[in-house]
């Protein structure tokens, strides 16, 4: 079993991280479009895990059966499935793989739920180290304003309502996401996350992202495929 940092695949793995409302998914979509237009073999990893694992996760969330520990472990199972079934084969084949959220999301969430930081990191040590992980840094207030404009109300686990931080979903979301931001900030130096100021105009953020990505693609050019 290879561990984080030990994998040597011809492909490239780019991931985006950040709290909800940081705009990371938009940026990843723009990057995807650009890489496709440039003719790279690029795949947006759809998190379509096997039905069995997905069903269990869904049921657990819907019926609120999950404790912090089982929440952590079922997501690790789900992630392992995507890793073994999807991401590793793609990287072996030389693809550019794009992931919306990665192990850093799990670290931030699980530790915010009280799990042991060292244990959670070890749990995910089977994951491939990304070529580059972007962290979209945004003040909590900005993300909340964006989310309120986009949808009505937060989901149970997303707002950390399982932790009993507050009866009020908005308040619970605020406290929980605040903890998550703290965890992300600790991970920036630890994992060398590339920080992008998510309050900048969308175009400016995308430009920064593309510069980073280009610098990592020199060798991958040989693997270009027809668009």
């Amino acid at each position, binding site marked *: *079993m290879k561990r984080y940092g030990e994998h040597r695949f011809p492909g490239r793995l780019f991931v985006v991280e950040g709290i909800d409302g940081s705009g990371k998914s938009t940026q990843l979509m723009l990057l995807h479009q650009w890489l496709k237009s440039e003719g790279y073999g690029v795949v947006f990893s759809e998190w379509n895990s096997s039905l069995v694992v997905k069903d269990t996760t869904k049921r657990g969330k819907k019926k609120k059966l999950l404790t912090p*520990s089982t929440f952590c472990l079922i997501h*690790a199972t789900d992630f392992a499935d995507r*890793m073994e079934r999807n991401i590793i084969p793609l990287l072996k084949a030389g693809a550019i793989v794009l992931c919306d959220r990665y192990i850093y999301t799990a670290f931030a969430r699980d530790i915010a739920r009280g799990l042991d930081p060292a244990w959670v990191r070890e749990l995910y040590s089977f994951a491939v180290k990304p070529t580059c992980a972007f962290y979209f840094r945004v003040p909590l207030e900005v993300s909340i304003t964006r989310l309120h404009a986009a949808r009505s109300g937060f989901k149970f686990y997303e707002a950390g309502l399982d932790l009993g931080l507050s009866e009020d979903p908005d308040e619970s979301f605020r406290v929980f996401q605040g903890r998550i931001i703290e965890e992300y900030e600790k991970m920036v130096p630890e994992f060398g996350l590339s920080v992008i100021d998510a309050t900048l105009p969308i175009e400016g953020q995308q430009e920064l992202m593309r510069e980073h990505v280009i610098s990592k693609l020199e060798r991958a050019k040989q693997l270009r495929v027809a668009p």
Partner: protein
Amino acid sequence: MKLTNGVVLPGMELTDLVGKLIVIEGTDGVGRSTQIALLKEWLEQKGHAVLDTGLSRSGLVGKGIKRAKEGHTLGRITLTLFYATDFSDRLEHEIVPALRAGFVVLTDRYIYSLIARAIVRGLDPLWVRSVYGFAIKPDAVFYLRIGVDDLIPRVVFTRGFDYWESGMDVYTTEDMYESFRRYQTSMLEQFDHLADEYKFKVIDATPDPRKIFEKLRNGITRVLEGESQRAPLEVASPAGGSAGRTTESPAQTPEAGAKAAAAEAAGSDGGIMDLKV
């Protein structure tokens, strides 16, 4: 107070877990479930409340694991973590509440089978142990040990070989017999390591089930009596190969004493020994 293997899950209070956690480990087909059924009845007759549990029986994951195994669809890391999820669900929702309520928890396998399976499938032994770092240390692990040559006839003449128990996912051979032999041999090797590391009480599982039951009863009696089991338990670990077996110390109560004597008379071979060969 109970301890874990290093990590404590959020919200898991380890004090006041007054019950006893007793694990019956052993490879496939060795007769664990028969023994557990007998032990449960015996313990209940003695007035103990018993929870019997086993792998993939959690409300959250149990069905999912069974489906996954039917389709042979999951990778080895994924399956390992699926089992860990199941275990954590049962630990939090079943085992810990039962221990808090003073039950004797009899579990058909524990993390050790899961660790052995994962290692035989090529996963990193340190990683697998770390994954199960949140497991509560049992009050005793009884390992029903059998050699592969004794195991094969039992399985062949009863239910036949099963895909997973034969490690058909591990080896490329089409020969189920060969695969079963190789897989179970590797599993037994892993169990022998684990027996050493986690201080299992090893019980020879080749004799008649009644004799095995006697040995288990004696062992469990000592666990339930508390102090008396402490001495033989601790002798087992650092002594190395020198103390090949721990002899059955005379039990405290007259009843248990009589049983121990009966077991001794029934067959001097075996006994509960420390696995250091």
